[in-house]
């Protein structure tokens, strides 16, 4: 057979997407890759619902008197925005979509340890999401995503129990996914794939899965107690009956703080992959980055009361939690420096995933540094519950986690679909998102410093100019999010075929076809080299 000078990539004849058709082949699938798609569709839907809530909020905040919405409606919107974005978008985004798709492939396995449990996780997620949507459509909930008592148990008339039930149910989805990942990573690595040869995405996912396992059950029992208290009014959180509203805060934040590390660690894992691939270099300080992930997971359980510095706790307790909160910042700083240093003497390309990665590193740094303000006892008093906090966590969650997610989606899109997305549009969107994001949330740091409280639907007139800037930024950000929805959908059907390794990257996932066969590899790979072994080419 004559050889062709240039090989034109083509999709394999049979792969996991076309091996079978029909509702049942998708809704009863145990293939982790198809389950990843099921999650992708669900969370994209939830993202735009949560985004719609945010749009209405920012429109309302253009006017100091908030003429667009009633306060009651506004309160429901910020509650629903927070709950949806955290539980039904960000928590599953990287783990359940990218994690599900990639973890088995990256370790050379055929599937996760418990494929049927994996499918059950998705159904539990959908059930929880449906119950929560029922709560929203049936009137909404307006307690804030933190459900503080006794407001949520005794003083609101909204759908607290069904909202809490939705959260409770979806929590089990996360627990089972975390369990699945931990067992998969421990037990199903390919021959030769020792812990320190694993991609850093796996390390981050492992650390995040440990947090899933230990933190999610606490929100589950907290929601149970909340629902029981709201229904029976026994008084466990009601001071009039001898209960302690601060107990709720401790229980909630014991989950709540590790939760935010669930939201960022997987995206950090993505960044490690992106930086290595698009600088064609092994991540600088591999073991430091790996250990930092574990350190973050451990220390994250020790800092919860920094959300409660002004709640009336003792000074000594405040001291301890403040010190530990500084400690948790250090591993994240180590990661940022190592990612940056990876580009040194590298071969850097400016594909969209790398733009997202660079954006992540910078914006996460800004968000993380503002965390130091909050760990500082004295400073936190002034900015607590103001827009400073809102800006801080959005820099990490949106400037960080969401950009990491988008970068990962773009990077692995060719692997997942077998097709390339349009690079020009992707770079444009990344830029629009970066600009829109900073315009939206940058002014909010100042707003918080000058005193504007969060969860306010009306505000003093002198704060208007900063609010208008923020809302203008939000409109740009919204455009930035809509464009990828369009071109990614288009490219899934019409994009040019990608071939097994369009990026020239290292990693087991790039050794198999795009899209991969159902069992991921024709033959189980045997690993003989380090992760990101870019430089070790035979002469």
């Amino acid at each position, binding site marked *: 057979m004559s050889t062709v000078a240039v090989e034109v990539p083509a999709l394999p004849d049979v792969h996991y997407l076309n091996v079978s058709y029909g509702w049942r082949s998708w809704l009863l699938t145990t293939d982790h890759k198809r389950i990843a798609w099921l999650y992708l569709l669900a969370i994209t839907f939830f993202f735009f619902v949560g985004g719609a809530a945010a749009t209405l909020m920012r429109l309302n905040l253009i006017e100091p008197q908030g003429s667009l919405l009633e306060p009651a409606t506004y309160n429901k919107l910020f509650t629903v925005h927070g709950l949806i974005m955290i539980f039904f978008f960000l928590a599953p985004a990287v783990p359940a979509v990218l994690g599900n798709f990639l973890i088995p492939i990256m370790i050379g396995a055929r599937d996760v340890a418990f494929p049927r449990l994996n499918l059950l996780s998705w159904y539990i997620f959908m059930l929880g999401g449906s119950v929560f949507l029922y709560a929203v459509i049936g009137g909404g909930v307006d307690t804030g995503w933190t459900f503080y008592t006794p407001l949520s148990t005794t003083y609101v008339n909204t759908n607290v129990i069904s909202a809490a039930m939705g959260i409770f149910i979806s929590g089990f989805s996360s627990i089972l996914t975390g*369990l699945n990942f931990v067992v998969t990573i421990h037990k199903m690595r390919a021959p030769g794939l020792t812990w320190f040869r694993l991609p850093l995405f796996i390390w981050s996912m492992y650390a995040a899965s440990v947090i899933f396992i230990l933190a*999610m059950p606490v929100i589950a029992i907290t929601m149970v107690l909340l629902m029981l208290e709201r229904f029976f009014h026994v008084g*466990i959180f009601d001071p009039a009956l001898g209960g302690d509203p601060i107990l709720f805060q401790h229980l909630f934040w014991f989950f709540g703080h590790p939760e935010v590390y669930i939201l960022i660690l997987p995206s950090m894992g993505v960044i490690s992959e992106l930086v290595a691939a698009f600088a064609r270099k092994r991540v600088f300080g591999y073991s430091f980055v790996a250990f930092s992930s574990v350190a973050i997971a451990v220390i994250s359980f020790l800092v919860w009361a920094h959300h409660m510095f002004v709640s009336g706790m003792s000074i000594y307790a405040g001291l301890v939690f403040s010190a530990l909160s500084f400690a948790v910042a250090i591993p994240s700083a180590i990661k940022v420096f190592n990612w940056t240093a990876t580009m040194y003497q590298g071969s850097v390309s400016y594909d969209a995933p790398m733009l997202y990665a660079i954006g992540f590193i910078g914006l996460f740094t800004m968000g993380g540094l503002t965390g130091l303000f909050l760990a500082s006892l004295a400073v936190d008093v002034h900015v607590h519950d103001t827009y400073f906090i809102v800006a801080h966590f959005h820099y990490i969650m949106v400037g960080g986690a969401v950009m990491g997610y988008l970068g990962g989606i773009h990077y692995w899109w060719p692997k997942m679909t077998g097709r390339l997305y349009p690079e020009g549009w992707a770079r444009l969107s990344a830029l629009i998102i970066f600009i829109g994001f900073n315009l939206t949330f940058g002014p909010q740091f100042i707003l918080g410093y000058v005193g504007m409280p969060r969860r306010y639907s009306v505000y003093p007139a002198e704060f208007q100019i900063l609010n208008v800037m923020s809302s203008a930024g939000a409109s740009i950000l919204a455009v930035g999010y809509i464009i990828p929805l369009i071109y990614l959908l288009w490219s899934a059907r019409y994009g040019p075929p990608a071939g097994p390794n369009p990026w020239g990257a290292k990693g087991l996932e790039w050794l198999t076809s795009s899209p991969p066969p159902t069992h991921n590899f024709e033959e189980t790979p045997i690993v003989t080299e380090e992760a990101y072994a870019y430089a070790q080419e035979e002469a």
Partner: protein
Amino acid sequence: MSEGHAQALVAEQFDDVEQQRGATSLGMWVFLATEVLFFGGLFCGYTLYRGLYSSAFEAGSHLLKIKFGASYTVMLICSSLTMALGVRAAQLRRRKALLIFLIITILLGAAFVFIKLRYEWYGDYLEHLVPGIDFAPEGENLVVIQRFGAALPHVSLFMFLYFVMTGVHALHMIIGVGLLATLFILAWRGHFTGGHYEPVEISGLYWHFVDIVWIFLFPLLYLIGGRY
């Protein structure tokens, strides 16, 4: 022959029996870790309120019927014994022994749940000791509460924690009984005669865990305030 039979029972994501065994075992241990955290929140609340309202907790403990608590403890410890013997039987591929031990464990677990709901909890309800539904202690119970100088709302808190903690535990027992019933059916069909005993082993782990939770609940709820 048995080797091939065992090989046929390896799920396709696993390379071999070893990997499957290791994975399912680790999976159950990780799940039990989540359960520790789940119950942990309740023990946290218990610790806080017992510290704040110790006399109310002691009074409340005296309102519970120790004969029930003690018999549950005996029943559960025995059921853990029969469960462990069942796991052994499965390892030794002894179908009849496995069936017998499973059925005794199931019966003990089911009896636990039945007695708890039908006699203990219903009795508490008749004595108006159910917070949120009907909490109005009278007669002997009221005397006990007054003897400890406890405030009624705080005793109500104790009873609330009692019902929630033992209720969540009972829910886990019911799930455990269902799990074992499924195992029984599989064992009846000879599923565990080929050396494939992991489901029995990990169900045993779950059962022992639920038992251990009871070992904590019993003294903390039934035995405080000089009750022994």
